[in-house]
Structure formats: C-alpha cells, structure tokens
C-alpha cells in the first residue's frame, strides 16, 4: 500500500504538457492550474484517457465579483488513489459560459445544474440544464455576490444591529409581505404562468414514442410526500407496464441556502450549520469542515483530539450504517420492527454523543485545532463497553437475521446494478462505489488525521447490486468497530486543543479543499478565504447529492417497486442533497 502511495501521490505539472492551453494558478494561497475555456474539453479528455484521472469529484462555481470573473473549479482524482488535480476555468462574469463536461464525466450533470441554478454559469452542451435546487422561474441566481435576499442586512456577520443597540421584534415585520419574500419591480402575479414542470414532463413523455409497437408510457410521480423517499425527495418515472423506462429525480425541496448563509457566517459560525447537512451523521460533517479550515490555517490538532475525532467519526459511521439497514428492511416491506432494532443501537450511541457534545444530533463538537471539550468522566468506559461487547454482537445478530433471509436475497441480489465504470463515471462515492468493485476509500487513498496509523481494511464487493451495497455497509461497520477498538485502546492523555479557543480565527487568504470519507461517501468542503473573518466562497461537495446521479442508471429497466429499494440502498439524506 505504502509503495503504491508514493507513486500515485505525484500530481503531474500539466502546464508543461498542455503548453499554451494550461497555466499554473499563481495567486497566493491557491494551487492547481487554469485552463482556457475553449480548451477545457480536450484537456479533460486527455487527462482522463491518458493520465488516468478518471474520477471527477466536484465542480464548484466561484463568483469573484471584484475581478468581474466567474470561476469554475474542478477536482479530479485517480480512482486508484492520491491527491487531487485541481484546475479552474475563468470566464467573464456577465457572460459566464463554460463547456459542459457532461459527456466526459456524468458526475458533472447535477453539479453543473447546481452551478447554473445558483451562480448563473451556463454550461454549453449540457443536455438538461434546468434549475435544480430552486424552481424554474425563480428570480435571479442567489449565490451571485450581488444578489440580495429579502432579509438582507449586511454582507457579513456579526450584524451590527444586534449589539449594542439591539433590535426587538421579528425581522419579517419590516417586510411588506410579512414573510421572507421579494418580487422584481413591475411583476404582476395575476398574469404569471407557472412553467416549472413542463420541461420535465416533456422529456418523460418523449420516451417510448419511437417504438414499433406504440404503447403508452405512464408518468408517475413519487414524492415529495411519500413514505419511501426518506424525506422530501421526488422522482418522476415513466413506466412501460411495470418497467421503468425513464426516471428523473427532482430535488430542492429542502434547499436551505446553506452556502449563502455560510458565506455570511464567520468560520466558526459555520460549524453548527454543518451539523445540519447530513443530519444523521453530524460528527463526520464537523470533521470535514474542520479539516478544510485547518488546512487553510496550517494548524494540526493535538494527538488526543485526533483520537477523539476519529472515535466520533467511526461511531457515526457505525450508527449510520446500522440505521441504513433499518431503512433497507423498511423499504423491503418489513415495516418498522427491524427499524426499531436499528434505532435502539443508535440511541445508545446518541447517549454518548449527548454526554460528550451536549446534543444528540447536532453535535457541533469539533473546533479548529481540536475539539470543543474533553470526554467527560465515564464516557470512555461506556464506549469501551459498546465497542468490545455490544456493537460486534449486534452486528452479528443483524448479519444472521438479514444476510441469509430469503426475501432480502431474492429482492436485493441483481437489483439496481451499477458497474464499476458507471460508478466511477457517475462520481459515486462511499459504499456505493466500493460495492461496485472499486476499492476507493479516502481514509486510505488520501489519508487524513490518524487513519494512516490505524489498522483496517478497505471493504470491497464486486456485483454492484443492492445486496452488495448492503454487504459493503455491514463489513464496513465491522471495520469501524475494529478501528474503534484500536482507538479506545490507544487514546493518549493530553491537551485537546492547539492554541487558545477563540471565536474569531485568523484564516490566511487562499483556497482549500478538505475531504473526509463520510458514511455516505466523499464529503468535501471547498473554501476560499480572502483573509477576512468570513469565507468568500463556501461550497459543500455532498456525497448524497452526487450519488443520486446514479439513480437513473440503477432503476432503468427495473420494476417500479425496486425504485424504492435502489433509493434506499444509495442511502441519501436530504439535508445534504439539497443543502
């Protein structure tokens, strides 16, 4: 493993290879390369086919208002591991047009739609460039720096109106509509024609027209209020009989403008907001964000803090996977009894989180350079009891009850197959990727924190179906348990924080991308700092969001009843999908 790491750890200087088309990014604090927009497609094609960078992880739009530029940042990896190749495309702000990478990397699909929706960057060649998080007809592109929300107060927090002359009353009382609303001048609501769904349904109805025997397809809506959608998620499926011939997910029903708020917040203020991304595993979100900011600040947490962090992250992973088994059972029709078993295990871990951080779900426990507080008395013993006795035992029980169960096997094996090529091309990550036979785990591929010192295996299964996704999670939970046993054995005494706790941290100008292997997949935070107390750009590469790109590939050709199963096996959390 270590020998291989040395060879893949090098990022080639592509500015030499593509002379004239690619230049180095020389801004202070930045890394990577800048590619001319007109050469983007050739360069990316070569990178993928000749240099082995086959995994497009994230596409981020950044609005550099003072320079009058829009920038699109791409993070490209090799699926055999190693650090990222970062390259950017810069276009003028008022004519932001970039060629789409859709046909080279399908993982760009939703991310480009997001950049179009929120930043107003048009991607030429994208076949379905509709709004994704807001709705068709929404006025403006909200993440542009000059776009103001109805309750706009100031560019950055803290707002001056709170102290020393505090305001009283509700903020909506200052709005003419007494709600969070604004309309463009001259707008007449009576003449408004909603246009949101037409483009979507039009593409659904086109399917099946050109067949010899002309059969009607039925368009079915699942969600956003549907018991199987794990939240407010909607799918539009076209059915030929019972078979799915077309499926488009519709998201954005939980779009909470995480990123716009994140740019107003100070660095520390973002920490509790990250809890609400993937609200089932908040500790992992904290971890990713803390790593990204620490990268910018150039600090490292002390040893004990690192151990505590890994302990919390692995407990979260274990809990999340067991929770997902409960959902799997639920989706298979065994309503709630198995879910109750899963939730019991979760409760016991939540008790630990509550004792350590103060809250069951929204932990807000990590700080830059450490963790918020040391483990209270008795908690470590409780964790020991869990990881050495209860957790392995319960996993075995789940294994026994589920893995050989005929209903589970009959429905899951061969359902929702995703090949390795598809998985990599779609940017799937986490258990979804590893179930398709790609042994890519960030904890090994690009190690962070103390994972390089810990002994665990990268779980991989090869069939890429729902059953293998389940097995991957099961084995991964076992590996988590193994990590936890090492961590509670070796955890050292010592400080839990580098430097003094401060509510205003100094973050030098530059960019950073911190990523962790969250339970759902690769969770990345892209942060641009201008040296001020607030980030200039704060982008979340949410694993659930990008994993959903694969949903259509999994469902097409299958039965409508299996759609629910496929969705459940991807394991999404809407807080993270919609942000």
């Amino acid at each position, binding site marked *: 493993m270590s020998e291989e790491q040395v060879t893949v750890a090098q990022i080639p200087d592509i500015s030499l290879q593509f002379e004239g088309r690619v230049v180095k990014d020389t801004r202070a604090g930045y890394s990577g390369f800048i590619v001319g927009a007109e050469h983007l497609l050739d360069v990316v094609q070569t990178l993928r086919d000749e240099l082995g960078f086959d995994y497009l992880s994230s596409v981020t739009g950044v609005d550099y208002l003072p320079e009058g530029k829009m920038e699109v940042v791409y993070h490209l990896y090799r699926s055999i591991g190693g650090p990222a190749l970062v390259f950017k495309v810069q276009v003028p702000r008022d004519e932001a047009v970039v060629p789409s990478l859709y046909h080279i990397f399908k993982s760009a699909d939703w991310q480009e739609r997001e950049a179009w929706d929120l930043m107003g960057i048009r991607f030429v060649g994208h076949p379905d460039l509709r709004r994704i998080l807001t709705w068709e007809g929404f006025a403006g592109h909200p993440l542009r720096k000059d776009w103001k929300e109805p309750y706009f*107060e100031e560019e950055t927090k803290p707002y001056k109106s709170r102290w020393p002359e505090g305001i009283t*009353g509700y903020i909506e009382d200052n709005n003419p*509509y007494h709600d*969070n609303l604004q309309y463009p001048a001259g707008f007449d609501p009576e003449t*408004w024609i909603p246009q949101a769904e037409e483009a979507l349904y039009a593409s659904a109805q086109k399917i099946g027209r050109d067949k010899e025997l002309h059969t009607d397809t039925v368009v079915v809506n699942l969600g956003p209020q549907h018991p199987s959608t794990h939240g407010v998620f909607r799918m539009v499926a076209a059915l030929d009989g019972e078979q799915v011939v077309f499926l488009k997910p519709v998201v954005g*029903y939980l779009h909470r403008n995480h990123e716009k*708020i994140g740019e107003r917040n100070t660095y520390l203020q973002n920490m509790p907001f990250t809890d609400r991304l993937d609200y089932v595993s908040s500790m992992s979100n904290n971890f990713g964000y803390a790593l990204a900011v620490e990268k910018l600040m150039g600090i490292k947490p002390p040893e004990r803090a690192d151990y505590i962090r890994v302990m919390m992250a692995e407990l979260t992973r274990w809990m999340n996977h067991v929770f997902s088994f409960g959902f799997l059972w639920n989706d298979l029709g065994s309503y709630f009894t198995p879910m109750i078993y899963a939730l019991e295990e979760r409760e016991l871990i939540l008790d630990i989180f509550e004792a350590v951080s103060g809250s069951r*779900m929204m932990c807000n426990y990590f700080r830059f350079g450490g963790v918020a507080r040391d483990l209270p008395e008795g908690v470590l013993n409780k964790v020991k009891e869990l990881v050495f006795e209860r957790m392995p035992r319960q996993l075995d029980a789940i294994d026994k009850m589920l893995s050989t169960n005929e209903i589970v096997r009959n429905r899951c094996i061969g359902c929702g197959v995703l090949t390795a090529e598809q998985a990599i091309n779609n940017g799937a990550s986490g258990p979804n990727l590893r179930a398709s036979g790609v042994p890519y785990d960030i904890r090994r591929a690009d190690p962070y924190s103390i994972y390089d010192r810990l002994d665990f295996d990268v779980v991989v299964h090869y069939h890429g179906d729902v059953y293998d996704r389940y097995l991957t999670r099961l084995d991964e939970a076992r590996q988590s348990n193994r990590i936890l046993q090492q961590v509670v054995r070796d955890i050292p005494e010592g400080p839990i924080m580098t430097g003094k706790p401060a509510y205003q941290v100094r973050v030098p100008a530059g960019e950073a991308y911190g990523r962790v292997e969250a339970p759902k997949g690769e969770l990345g935070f892209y942060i641009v700092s201008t040296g001020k107390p607030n980030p200039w750009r704060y982008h979340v590469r949410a694993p659930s969001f990008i994993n959903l790109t694969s949903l259509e590939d999994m469902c097409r050709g299958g039965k409508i009843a299996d759609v629910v199963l496929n969705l459940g096996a991807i394991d999404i959390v809407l807080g993270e999908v919609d942000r």
Partner: protein
Amino acid sequence: MSDETIQSSNYEIPPEMQGTVSITSLDKVYAWSRKNSMWPMMFGLACCAIEMIVLAASRFDIARFGMEVMRPSPRQSDFLIVSGTVTKKMVPQIVRLYNQMPEPKYVVSMGACASGGGPFKEGYSVVSGIDKYIPVDVYIPGCPPTPQALLNGLIALTKKVDKERIKTSEWYAKGSEAAVPVPVLGPDLMDPRKYALIYEQTHRPIEPEIPAETEQKEG
C-alpha cells in the same frame, strides 16, 4: 397509559356498581376517545423528522399514547407534525396536504425552523414559519427538540383536544373554514391571498431607498 377516569363527578353511582358502570357526558367520551387515538401523518421534512422517527421507535414509543399509527395518507390522519425547515418549494405541497386532511385536524410545529424559520430564516428559500400559511396548534421550540420535548408537545396537543366540546368546537360549526389557498411558485413564493398586495408593492414608483430592505429601528 392514562389512569384518569371519564366518570363525571356530577353523578352518584351506587356502591355495588362502582367499577363496572360509569356515567358521563357524550362530550367527555367524545374527547376522551379522540385524544387517545390521534393518528399523526407520516411526513418528515428535515432534521426534526429523524427525531420524530425516533419517537416512534422503542425508547420513546408513541404507541403509549395511541399515536403509533402513522399514516402516509393525509386522508387518514388527525394531525400533521411539521417536522423541520419549510422551504418555499415545499409550501404548496404542505398546504395541499393540510387541505386534504379530514376535519378536525391539527398541526404541530416541531422545532425552530417550522415555527419561525429557525437558523435558516435569513436565507432566501425558507419561509418564516409555517403559521403564515396554515393554522398551528402547538409550537415546540428547540433545534431539534429532543424526542421528550416533542412528546411534551404532543401531550399538550392531547390536552387541547380533551378540552374541545362538540357544541362549541369550531370544527362542527356551520360554515367551517374553507380550504387554504395553495401558494404558487413564481419569481418567489406567491400566496394567492396576497396578490393585490404584491401588485401594489411591485408597481410603486421606484424610490431611492426601498424601505423593505432597510433596517427599521423602532422601539
């Protein structure tokens, strides 16, 4: 769970029949039976929904209150737990679901987000409280409320139901309230009840400073 008797104190029961016979009013039986089988709608929005699921699981177990029958269909549910952030894109659906619920119907606003927008209030796509669109019966603060806090709110709701009487209840009054108009997604969320106001505001002569966006400091 509930040990309280439905016996009305106004009536004397002969000692030999105590424990087997209760005399009570129809009102009381009606309220008692209703409050002990409130069916929530299976409808989760955001983070709070996870705590709502936990509430139905074994540690907190709402079956003890006769609420374990979570119905995915609004037609069969008695109350709606608005569990989480209400986004503008979701408001039309929530209002429609509320309209589809049979009367009497109740709404529990769970968590800071549903009550007033919560931490996401300042953003552009979250409404400042679901009570701007549908009537809310119980508000539960917290972000998220722990399952026990939610249980506390649900007990408050059953208490409210318990107090309702057939004669005075608004649900059975003539001309019971009409359906809430479903908002429309335009350049921003549009409540049909506010069309005139929107027109008036968007057709004002442009002033150098729009008062809606400036900070008004009063009081």
